């Protein structure tokens, strides 16, 4: 993996704990932040966290050389770790101490090797330093970057685009989105994704024409994308027609993310 390992004091200090969790197979959360803190600051952070979430045991370490704050949370899952990180972020932002992004990770949800995960979290954060003060969840290392399938979402509804983008990204897909048919076609031509998820009620051009044009592009490029329709349209006529047009799945809104993902999986894995 990365050769230029950073040697942070955090790793040294958390090492034993992490080994312990790993050995006894207990969950733990890790939060790191690029922040400028002094002794006093760290102290008041601890007081703050103890007050806000008194039930949670945690360890703090601060790497003065690289300005990294590290927190180790005892016995908690990823969801809680992320939520806990919101407290930390609130505190740091209020004191104007946050310098870059924050990364959260969880053993065993993000990685089955706790120490390695921590060092990679730190590495990633310091190498790709950004000014965006956001919380990022450590990317599941079991998914190799080269394996990722790409998905194009075409829907005029921003809520759908947001929900799906975030959800599918977490599931390891590369997600692109367009909000109207014309734009969707342009994107398709450039990206040639593995899967297209489209609404029928589009603007500019309708969903049927959109699917039709995709098939035409496929013919020219000899490529092939699976098409999944995710739509408000409940009429059987539409279901029948989209299948005739060559769509592989038809899901109506409101929809279940779990079902959607299962179907996506089936589609993209079958094609390989």
């Amino acid at each position, binding site marked *: 993996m990365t050769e230029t390992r950073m040697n942070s004091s955090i790793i040294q200090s958390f090492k034993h704990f992490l080994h312990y969790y790993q050995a006894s197979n207990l969950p733990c959360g890790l939060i790191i932040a690029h922040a400028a803190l002094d002794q006093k600051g760290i102290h008041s952070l601890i007081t703050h966290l103890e007050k806000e979430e008194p039930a949670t045991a945690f360890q703090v370490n601060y790497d003065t050389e690289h300005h990294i704050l590290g927190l180790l949370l005892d016995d908690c899952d990823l969801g809680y770790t992320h939520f806990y990180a919101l407290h930390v972020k609130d505190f740091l932002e209020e004191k104007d101490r946050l310098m870059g992004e924050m990364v959260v990770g969880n053993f065993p949800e993000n990685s089955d090797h706790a120490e390695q995960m921590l060092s990679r979290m730190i590495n990633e954060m310091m190498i790709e330093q950004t000014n965006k003060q956001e919380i990022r969840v450590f990317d599941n290392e079991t998914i190799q970057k080269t394996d990722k399938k790409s998905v194009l979402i075409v829907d005029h509804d921003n809520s759908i685009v947001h929900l799906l983008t975030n959800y599918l990204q977490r599931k390891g897909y590369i997600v692109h989105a367009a909000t109207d048919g014309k734009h969707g076609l342009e994107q398709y031509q450039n990206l040639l994704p593995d899967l297209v998820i489209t609404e029928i009620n589009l603007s500019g051009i309708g969903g049927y024409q959109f699917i039709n044009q995709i098939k035409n592009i496929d013919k020219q490029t000899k490529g092939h994308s699976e098409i999944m329709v995710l739509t408000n349209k*409940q009429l059987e006529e539409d279901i029948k027609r989209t299948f005739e047009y060559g769509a592989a799945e038809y899901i109506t809104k409101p929809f279940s993310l779990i079902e959607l993902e299962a179907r996506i999986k089936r589609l993209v894995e079958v094609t390989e």
Partner: protein
Amino acid sequence: MRDFLLVYGIFAMYYVIVINTIYFGIIMFSFRKITRIMKETFYSKYEFLSGSKHMPPISILVPAFNEELTIKENVQSLLALHYPAHEVIVVNDGSGDNTSKVLIDEFRLNYYKPTPVEQNTLSTAEVRGVYYNPEFPNLYLIDKENGGKADSLNAGINFSHYSLVSSIDADSLLENDALIRIARKYMENPEEYVAIGGNVRIANGCRISNGMVQKVRLPKKLLPMLQTVEYIKAFLGGRIGWSDINGLIIVSGAFGVFRKDYIIKVGGYRGGYPGEDMNIIIKLHRYMLDHNLPYQIDFCPDAVCWTQAPDTFKILGSQRKRWGRGNLKNMLELGTRMFMRPRYKVMGWLTIPYNIIFETLSPYFRITGFLALVGYSLIDMTGWKIVAVFMLINVLYGTLLGLGSLLIEELAFRRFPRIRDYFKMVLYTILMFFGYRQLGILWRFMGHIQFFRKNNSWGTMTRTSWNEDEEKEEAA
């Protein structure tokens, strides 16, 4: 003589004040209705309704005459409307250009022989054929001999498969949810809603791409800007109020939804031209009232259709002359028969009298009144104060009506959120009274002259068109 001129001039002034007062009353009705409109605008789930099995299918009729430049995009965006089940029927009214060919090529349509016309349908000019492609099962193109816009609509009605029809101008753009908004309203009372009109807005200045208005902006040019405030006043201030008392006299030809059975019962759109959109509504009112049927003709201001406003004096003039002609024709043919008849209720007592006295006849009163005042001022300069005061009242009153309409716009629709836009619209509302309004009256008068000159030749089946360019040639 001098006194007579003054008295007549003052009479004309009172006349205008009365118009404005009635209009003000109508705006008050609009205000009464606006909370109801806001509720249904904000809290109906159009997103989900647009896919529901339970909405009625609608046939969209698109009469087209020499529309080769825009027809393709328009049909594409009509096919893409967010609606559960609709068909688009383009009626090519014997265009001299490639209107048919453009569509046939784009959608790979095939020719079919026209179906024999059944009973109960409307007579039209000869239909040459129907074009269709099963790949686009919702699109039909009817190719027929030239017969005018009304005739094309009748041909479309004959052919349509569904019991609701919507008439749409080939050069206007519907918003994606326009149809579902009207249909939802219709669903609340399908027996009584015989017609529901959409709101027409001016697209000049807006950013348009892919057959959609992407960004709403006020027009930059003078004439479209004046028409923008004029339309807001007429549609939001006027039609909401008129519909509240069920006295709507027109559903814009640019966008409206109708019950097909009643259109056929009243004999369809009238052959000949112009004014067919007002004609059908008056006939519907008359039919329903004659037969003592409960009914409503409503206006749905959140269902929006964008249209390009004429931006030259010449085209605007010919449009307004046409409107004048149409209005006069309808009032002579239908209005006089309903005037002050108790049986026709609001129509008989208010709408028709208002239209005859204050719309149709207004050029005569206003022009003569104005001339009288000018004459009086020439004879006697001392009366200027009275004249000025009355003129000021009229301008202020008119502006007030404009401001009221802008308030309605702000309450329920907010298409122009910028404060700067508001002041611009207010400015043009005032500006309207210095030249534009007078020109409008003059055009209407000229329309009347055209009407009387050509009255004899106005048979039922004359070759007519409704296209601007054609109109210009005709005028030349």
